[in-house]
């Protein structure tokens, strides 16, 4: 299967949220990386037929997804960023209902519901009301919902945001498991979420796709290098003003900095292999530091 975006643009009034994006998805996990406001949600809502592009087209195996209507949505599983549900439904009822609007026959729906409740680890909570679930459990119910129709295209909008580190790791594993035999598009502003599970990374900034490719290709695309240097505190603060610093380790005598520079930034600095986080920092500037914590 091939999902293809051709010069897709979405404008809200005069504001361009998604700017002329052309991409092709064929299978595997795609990690859509970008800071808040980059246009990830807008792009995904278009892929879910919830928004129409202002211009450009989205096709599935050559056919326009809006023209395909129900037959396209039948291939789709979607976990929205702002995942809404029916607070007074139990998990089981919720899943059965969604199964019904996804066109599963009642007997199949019942079986699939139980299967997914087990798979996402909600067996004990199956008869609890949705509103009583913890944040992580809600998100797992959200994943289960998206998986009900065994979608060929799974779209997950920031599925790990707001989860604690343990939940996040479990979730990542779950997604990795679910990604077999389907195409997964996963958006995040947190690099480790996609670093190891994505076959392809898309870097999105201000509505524009700045880089795309396998993690290695994206890393290789960075024109500057990553350096590690150990200096005293005074030099360290100077370096931090001049370069993008992806990590600082404070030590008794000074600090060890990991930074991005075109040429050797200081005496004694040694070049090291770039990681995806360095690339993220390079393209998105200091904002990347927010989540990953500069000491």
């Amino acid at each position, binding site marked *: 299967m091939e999902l293809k975006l051709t010069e897709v643009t979405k404008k809200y009034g005069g504001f361009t949220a998604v700017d002329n994006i052309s991409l092709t998805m064929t299978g595997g996990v795609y990690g859509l990386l970008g800071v808040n406001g980059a246009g990830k949600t807008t792009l995904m809502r278009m892929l879910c*037929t919830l928004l129409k592009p202002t211009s450009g087209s989205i096709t599935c195996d050559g056919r326009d997804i809006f023209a395909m209507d129900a037959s396209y949505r039948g291939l789709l599983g*979607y976990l929205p960023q702002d995942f809404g549900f029916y607070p007074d439904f139990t998990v089981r009822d919720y899943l059965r209902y969604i199964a019904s*609007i996804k*066109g599963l026959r009642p007997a199949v729906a019942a079986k699939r519901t139980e299967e997914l409740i087990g798979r996402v680890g909600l067996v004990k909570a199956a008869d609890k009301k949705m509103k009583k679930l913890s944040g992580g459990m809600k998100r797992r119910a959200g994943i289960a919902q998206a998986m009900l*129709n065994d979608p060929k295209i799974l779209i997950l909008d920031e599925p790990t945001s707001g989860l604690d580190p343990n939940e996040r790791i479990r979730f990542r594993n779950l997604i990795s498991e679910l990604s077999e035999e389907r195409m997964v598009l996963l958006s995040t502003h947190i690099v480790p979420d996609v670093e190891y599970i994505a076959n392809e990374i898309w870097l999105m900034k201000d509505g524009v796709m700045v880089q795309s490719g396998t993690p290695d290709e994206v890393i290789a695309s960075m024109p500057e290098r990553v350096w590690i240097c150990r200096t005293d505190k005074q030099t360290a603060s100077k370096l931090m003003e001049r370069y993008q610093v992806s990590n600082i380790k404070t030590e008794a005598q000074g600090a060890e900095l990991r930074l991005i520079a075109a040429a050797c930034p200081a005496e004694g600095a040694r070049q090291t292999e770039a990681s995806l986080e360095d690339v993220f920092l390079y393209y998105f500037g200091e904002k990347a530091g927010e989540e990953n914590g500069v000491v």
Partner: protein
Amino acid sequence: MVWFEVKKVFSRASGKISLAVLAALLAVTCWLAVSHIDYVNADGDIVTGIRAVRMLRSDKEKWEGYITENVLRSVIRENAAINASDEARSENVKEQNKAYAKKQGFDDIRDMINRAFCSFREYNYYRADSITEEEVGGLYEQRVARLREWLYSEEVYDHYTEEERAFLIEQYESLKTPFYYAVSDGWQAVLYYAQTIVMIGMLVCGFLVSSVFSGEFQTKADAVFFSSKYGRSKAIAAKVKAGYLIVTVLYWILILSYSAIVLAATGTGGGNCAIQTSFTYGKSFYHITFFELWLLMVFGGYIGWLFILTLTMLVSVLTRSPVLAVMIPFIILFLPSFVGGFSVLSDMLGLWPDQLLNIGEAIMLFNLYRVGGHIAGALPVVFTMYSCLYLVLPPALYLAYRKTGID
């Protein structure tokens, strides 16, 4: 799918509260309707409730039958005899009550005499006291004469065309006389409080159905809903169906249990009598019986609920907010009392949807409408108009919801 939609509505706290309110409404209206009937016993004390119903019926039953000249004369005779008694002439209220107690059996017929011999817009309870046995024989002619008098009075002369006057007079004249009288207190009690239960019930039901569509936006569940396979087709149809299922089931449970309870307590007799034998509907120009009036009330209420509540749902889709939507039934019910003062609008208000919920009132109005060369009262017009209007609403609802979200 339909079942889940219904479940969505009633799993919310607001859904459960609404159901409780409806149950309370049913209990209260039944109680009001039954206790509304009172009876003055031989000691001059007022009795209410089921005991009053029984005693009143046994008094009135003696007068059942065609109200011929002879019957009218005996009413005048007995009435005069009671008036001449010591009790009636006493200054003591209790004594007067004892006198009234004896009149209760024929009070309905006595009231017919009052109405026929007062001018059309007036009512004087003591009018029958000054009617002679000779005069009372002309009751049925008097009825028509009073109407004619009123139609040609300055008060309303400009309001009707000659043809319309002729229509109303013809309606009065063609009513079969003499009237057949039977105790119809049960039907009257049902009809009297029907509008209360139908109207308040609809307001409560408005709360329930307003969330069927807008609930998706409120809970932000719309993204999953619309991106699912049937999110823009069958799942919406299921919502429309669920809305109607809720409206239909609640309406019929409410109105049928109300009618059954009240009739069981107050009696089903008199259903085949003309409504003109009653005090309340005595002047109506529609030729119907109490049972037919009940049918009109029941089906009118249903059409009214369907129309107004579908409009509510439509507004909840268009505004994506249940708040604005639940106001619709309130606006429809209360607008007439705000603008009612302007007589220019009175003809238009006669066709306002609230009339369907208020058949008991509508049946007494003299608004006339010209439809395709025919003159008709408001009721047939209202019934036809809202049945047709209602039919276009469900598709509108479906299409409006289908189009939301994509922009």
